[in-house]
């Protein structure tokens, strides 16, 4: 495999280094600039400086210096780019309840990466039992990123908005803190910054980005954002990669595929074969998060109880 134009090498190598997959190769792109719907956002912040390197077959080729970093920097997005979202994509999540044993790794990773206020969480794991004689199960929830988002409907200032890639985000620099969205959300997804968030100084001084949802701002609403910043880097949302049991599967419905990093499934087959469903379908919110029922479980329900705080162990019927 040889490449006879530097620009392309650079482009390819750039894609190349965007961790797992999401790579379009020289073979695909050839020397043209065609974009496939699968390529990640390609806007790596190029330094303009080239580095010479040795290829596998002993040739000397050039790439941009930006790719020396394990994860190349991405240019900061403007507010209007953040509001538009990634063209051609429509993100979807599948949560496999048969694999969850309430390890809460998803939650702690999410809280850690987003500096969520202690006591609050964007990812929640519910101990569910639908009726007295039905089976208990563990149900992690993220933001449902509804296609008919009730929270977005009620926002008076476009502070929360839905993007073309299906993600519902919050602009904390716009939010007036009226909390109507919290009342409107039937999934209790949203949390409020009742006080100034405790953040490390280097985080607090950052400019707020809707895609990273960091830093959270006093008097505004926060919630799960599906980690579009991670997706742009070619990585999976924190909850997905943190779960050791592969409960969370994330993907692009336009590609008809979801993955937890280790396993990748064809979305339509998975939903069909395992009877996937969405929460509170009757409300007409059209969530982007699907659930696989807790059948043929990998773990007995009880194994999750050890991670449950004492006062929660009784569970609740709802």
């Amino acid at each position, binding site marked *: 495999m040889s490449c006879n134009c530097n620009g392309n090498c650079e482009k390819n190598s750039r894609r190349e280094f965007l961790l797992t997959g999401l790579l379009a190769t020289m073979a695909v792109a050839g020397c043209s600039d065609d974009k496939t719907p699968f390529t990640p956002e390609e806007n790596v912040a190029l330094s303009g400086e080239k580095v010479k390197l040795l290829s596998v077959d002993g040739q000397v080729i050039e790439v941009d210096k930006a790719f020396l970093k394990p994860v190349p920097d991405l240019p900061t997005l403007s507010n209007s780019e953040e509001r538009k979202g990634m063209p051609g994509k429509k993100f979807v999540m599948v949560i496999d309840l048969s694999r969850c044993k309430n390890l809460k790794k998803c939650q702690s990773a999410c809280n850690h990466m987003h500096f969520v206020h202690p*006591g*609050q*969480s964007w990812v*929640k*794991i*519910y*101990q*569910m039992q639908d009726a007295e004689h039905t089976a208990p199960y563990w149900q992690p*929830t993220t933001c449902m990123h509804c296609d008919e988002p*009730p929270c977005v*409907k*009620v*926002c*008076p*200032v*476009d*502070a929360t908005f839905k993007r073309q890639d299906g993600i519902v985000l919050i602009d904390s620099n*716009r*939010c*007036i*803190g*009226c*909390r*109507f969205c*919290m*009342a*409107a959300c*039937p*999934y*209790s997804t*949203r*949390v*409020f*910054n*009742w*006080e*100034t968030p405790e953040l490390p100084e280097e985080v607090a001084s950052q400019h707020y980005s809707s895609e990273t949802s960091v830093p959270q701002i*006093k*008097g*505004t*609403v926060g919630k799960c954002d599906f980690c579009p910043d991670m997706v742009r880097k070619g990585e999976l949302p924190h909850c997905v990669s943190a779960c050791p049991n592969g409960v969370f599967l994330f993907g692009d419905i336009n590609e008809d595929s979801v993955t937890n990093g280790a396993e990748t499934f064809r979305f339509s087959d998975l939903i069909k074969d395992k009877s996937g469903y969405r929460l*509170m379908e009757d*409300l007409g919110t059209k969530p982007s998060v699907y659930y696989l029922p807790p059948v043929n479980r990998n773990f007995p329900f009880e194994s999750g109880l050890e991670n449950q*705080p004492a*006062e*929660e162990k009784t569970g*609740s019927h*709802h």
Partner: protein
Amino acid sequence: MENISTLQSERITRELMPQKFGKRGMIWTGALIIICLIGLYAYYRQLDKGLVVTNMRDYVSWGIYISNFVFFVAISLVGSLITAIFRLANIHWSTPLTRIAEIIAVSAIACASVIIIVDMGRPERLVNLFSHGRLQSPITWDVIVIGTYFFISLLLLYIPLLPDLKILNEQKNKGPKWMSKVYRFFGFFWKGTKEQWKISNKSVVILSIMIIPVAFCIHTVTSWLFATTYRPGWDSTNFGAYFVSGAFLVGSGAVVIAMYVFRRYYKLEKYITEKHFDKMGKAVVLLAFLYLYFNVNEYLVPAFKMKKPEEAHLTNLFAGEFATMFWFAILVGMVIPVLIMITKKGRKPLPMFIAAIMVVVGAWFKRYLIVTPTLLHPFLPMQEVPESYKHYFPSWEEWAIAMGSLAGALLIITFFVRLFPIIPIQETITEEHEKAITENK
């Protein structure tokens, strides 16, 4: 004949002139100012530390600020009832009450705006509502209709005040200088010419017609802040009518209280008569029945079905944590006042006053019950959150701010009464005059 009329006019003017605060007035005003200041201090703390000083948390994300807001909006509706509905229905006995009703409306709506800003996490971004306002949101509708209602109410307060300002202007020596300046500033141009009367009468008629749909809008839209969500207890098609009827009830209650207080302390027995109390009493009974009717709809129908999400909410209201308050609001806010006012003796000033206080207090708790218990029954169970998230009782800051806003509303009314006649002087004179003419015929 002319002489008698002039004498009579002078007497009426003398009796209805705004009066200086007496000792009690001073204590009253001072107390209100202190309550407002405590509220201001609490708000300063809230601005400094954030909404964490309240006891609202992620589940109960709306607390007494919002219920207080609903209460204010509700009370303000009475302006439209007494000024407009009664007027268009050709009811004349309510004339002396119009200004009372309008100032209650104006002060309540002003404080509703204040308390809703207090509830905001980022009050300094209020301007976003205008620079980034989104027409799809019921909040935007609420801002528009409340602004409109406030403006109409101000006009309805001001235009009928013009003739009285002329009278006040003519009594220059009887008040401090700044007061006569105020009168001159607002009313120097009213000469009472025929054309002026014609325009002002026409304006008042137009405003009276306009204020009715706008009044229905403000409270219906306010109810939609709840009814446009999915939550059990709010997800109701009955909500608009339920809110409007409740609003008329509590507003009338407030007017009765004001009637009693002004009558007593300003010695207005001749102008606010027992007949007025009797008529108002009948109106309140009617409105209480109306509100009861919507309450039955609101609770009985879902309770008959007991859908799962509603069940926890309703049993909590009927027999659970909020049962005492719920039955208090129903009994004290509606049933007992009806029982009092339905009898002729009950429509005497004092029993009316007591019943009206019950109506207003009951109504305040009713608004609390509309907001809070629902939020404690989300669709997904409340788990894995600090214990404080699962309950709600307002913090002292919330109480202080809520009480401060109530005191603020009363303060506006108090200062208004100090400045302007609470019973329209000119209208009263005209009516007396007309009465005399018809009697002489």
